[in-house]
């Protein structure tokens, strides 16, 4: 057992390392560009050299790399502070869906610009009344000639305002059971009738948008899968959802450990306090456990196996850990833990900032409760919850005042 690469892995890593060293954009190159321009510059450079979306087939702009190679690439790339991140949904979720469900022409047309960063895609799944219960989407699509006419609202769409395309799940038949009445499309985000409004979060940030559809027309060619097959198509997308969401936020063990070395309790470093030590030890066990669980799944990849459900574990454990650690760090600072003021806040207000951001980690990408259900059902093989909505026409499923 070791943490080392196999010879082939080592060789590949070396190649990646040297290319990165020579090609990571300098500060000057990025000077004066906004975040999106920076991301696009770097993505294009990788694409031209064959380092973009390396797991993809060559003909779609990839490199035909293996799973472990792409992990190695990501490890090495992440060692540099390079602008990425706006492509995650397009390359990570939309592309795999296109690969399994789009026509050959569509793939050859849409995938290369996704790889090169020329096109940015977003996801239009969740709705105010369809969160954990995603299949409850109400946004309607009605056939009109060769087009479909879309009306309704989506929510939690990141990057909607700068995306070229979006993947979309809508209801085409409300009179059949809810999983059977869905259809899946991709659409041009510049289509008339698409209205985008940012959502302000309790953390103050606005990383998400609401997207409204008023008689938006989508040509039937942009349908993925058959009419009514939308749920199966979305599963392809969701299987690729980056569980990266909510790994941990800014506040991790080492940071709070160092804080406890810095601040004092009764004139002694807080780290000497047994209660502080005990709390930190438990968090270390969680972080360490997640880290080595990750190594085990990398090993599975490296052996050509598919890793287990550790991603949902990481998301589930990491979110509450982050929330509790942020709260605990504020306690260590006592009254000044509450400060968010740029001028006087400790560590730039990172702890209250994380305290306000962490509730989102416990919800986004599957709430704690959904994660536990997934673990119980898919890993332990326990029965699904009773579903009174099973087999009921969607239009007859009861809803509440808060839906």
């Amino acid at each position: 057992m070791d943490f080392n690469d196999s010879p082939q892995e080592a060789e590949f890593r070396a190649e990646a390392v040297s290319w990165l060293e020579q090609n990571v954009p300098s500060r000057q190159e990025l000077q004066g560009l906004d975040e999106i321009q920076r991301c696009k510059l770097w993505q294009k450079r990788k694409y031209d050299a064959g380092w973009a979306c390396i797991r993809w087939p060559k003909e779609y702009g990839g490199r035909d790399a293996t799973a472990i190679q792409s992990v190695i690439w990501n490890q090495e790339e992440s060692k540099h502070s390079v602008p990425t991140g706006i492509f995650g949904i397009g390359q990570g979720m939309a592309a795999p869906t296109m690969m399994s469900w789009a026509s050959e022409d569509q793939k050859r047309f849409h995938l290369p610009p996704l790889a090169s960063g020329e096109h940015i895609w977003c996801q239009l799944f969740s709705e105010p009344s369809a969160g954990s219960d995603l299949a409850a989407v109400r946004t309607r699509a009605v056939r009109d000639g060769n087009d479909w006419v879309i009306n309704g609202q989506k929510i939690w769409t990141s990057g909607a305002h700068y995306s070229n395309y979006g993947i979309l799940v809508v209801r085409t038949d409300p009179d059949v059971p809810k999983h059977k009445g869905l259809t899946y499309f991709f659409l041009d985000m510049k289509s008339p009738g698409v209205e985008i409004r940012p959502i302000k979060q309790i953390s103050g940030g606005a990383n998400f948008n609401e997207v409204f559809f008023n008689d938006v027309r989508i040509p039937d060619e942009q349908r993925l899968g058959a009419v009514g097959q939308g749920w199966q198509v979305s599963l392809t997308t969701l299987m690729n959802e980056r569980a990266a969401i909510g790994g941990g936020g800014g506040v991790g063990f080492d940071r709070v450990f160092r804080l406890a070395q810095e601040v004092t309790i009764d004139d002694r470093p807080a780290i000497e306090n047994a209660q502080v030590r005990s709390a930190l030890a438990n968090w270390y066990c969680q972080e360490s456990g997640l880290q080595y669980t990750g190594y085990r799944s990398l090993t599975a990849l490296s052996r050509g196996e598919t890793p287990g459900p550790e991603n949902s574990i990481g998301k589930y454990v990491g979110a509450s850990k982050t929330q509790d650690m942020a709260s605990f760090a504020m306690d260590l600072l006592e009254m000044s833990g509450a400060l968010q003021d740029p001028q006087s806040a400790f560590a730039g207000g990172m702890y209250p900032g994380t305290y306000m951001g962490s509730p989102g980690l416990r919800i986004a990408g599957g709430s704690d409760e959904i994660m536990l259900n997934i673990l119980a059902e898919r890993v332990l093989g326990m029965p699904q919850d009773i579903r009174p909505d099973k087999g009921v026409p969607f239009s007859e499923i009861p809803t509440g005042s808060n839906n």
Partner: protein
Amino acid sequence: MNFEFSQDQELLREQARGFLDENCSLSDVRKILEGSESYDSGLWSKIADLGWLSTVIPEEHGGLGLTYYELSVIAEELGRAIAPVPFSSSVYLAAEALMLAGSSSQQQKWLPKLAIGEAIGTFALAEGAGRPTPKSLTTTASNSSISGTKIAVPDGDIADFAIVVAKCDGGDGASVYLAELADVARRKVSVIDPTRSHAQLQFDSSKAELMGSEGTGWSLTSQLMDRAAVMFAWEQVGGSASALDQAKEYAMGRYAFGRPIAGFQAIKHKLANAYVKNTLARSNCYFGAWALAGNEAELPLAAATARVSSTQAYYFASKENIQTHGGMGFTWEFDCQMYYRRAKLLSVALGSELWWQDRLISAYERSNQPITA
């Protein structure tokens, strides 16, 4: 056995809740959250008119001379409403400190003003990361003037005076001073809960009057902490109960998979646990109120017990309220955030959970009376 509020006190609660429903709805609180006002001055003056500020101030100082039971009822309702007013600073801390250690002239000068809201007072202890100790305290005093920086001082930007803990070589290492703030350099600082304003106070040989006798600062602070902790705990319990109500209401009306999410055991048991924590915390607050009202020997133990359990209850209820709301709970437009912010502010305001846990055991070590549960 008569371990309940009296009918008059329950009547007061009804009136208080009715008044706050009308004058301090969550949308009123949101105005302060989103605006630039330090507090809701309209609400503040109405509260003054109701006499709440003067509840426990003796009649000779223009107060109502009522008991801490009445003040407990008001505190719980203010906490439930997340009221954006300097009540805790002015009433639980400043007035309390004056009644505890003020000279009769200090009392005569300030208590009547506090009683009618003509003046706002606060208490200034913290000076930065961690809790000050006799060793770490940096604010100094020399003949009736003090120098040093206090941050974060609740309502420091709007207070007329502050009760300040300053270093002192004799006695227990500190003395308490009363300093008028009119000429003191102050800067408003933002905190986790913008519905409660805070400031940095820069004392630079600022005029200040000694309170109590020289070198009794830490013992006075300790007594003040116990007395204020009971009232803070009531505010925490009130907020926690209200957060639970909000979560339950939402869960009843939010449907997923064809049924109210309130019907899923994950939600039922989550909220049942919040109810249990709230109930235990509230009962501990009764104990605290009893000990405070009678100035009982159990006060330090009762205060710490009420404080620790209500801090834990409010953290749990406010974060699980957001969780129960799902994505919507994380949006600015929803009100869940207000409980979550206030919960954290109150938990660091008087000393952290760690600090009060330690204090609880210390109090038990001193009293060391077995409880017969």
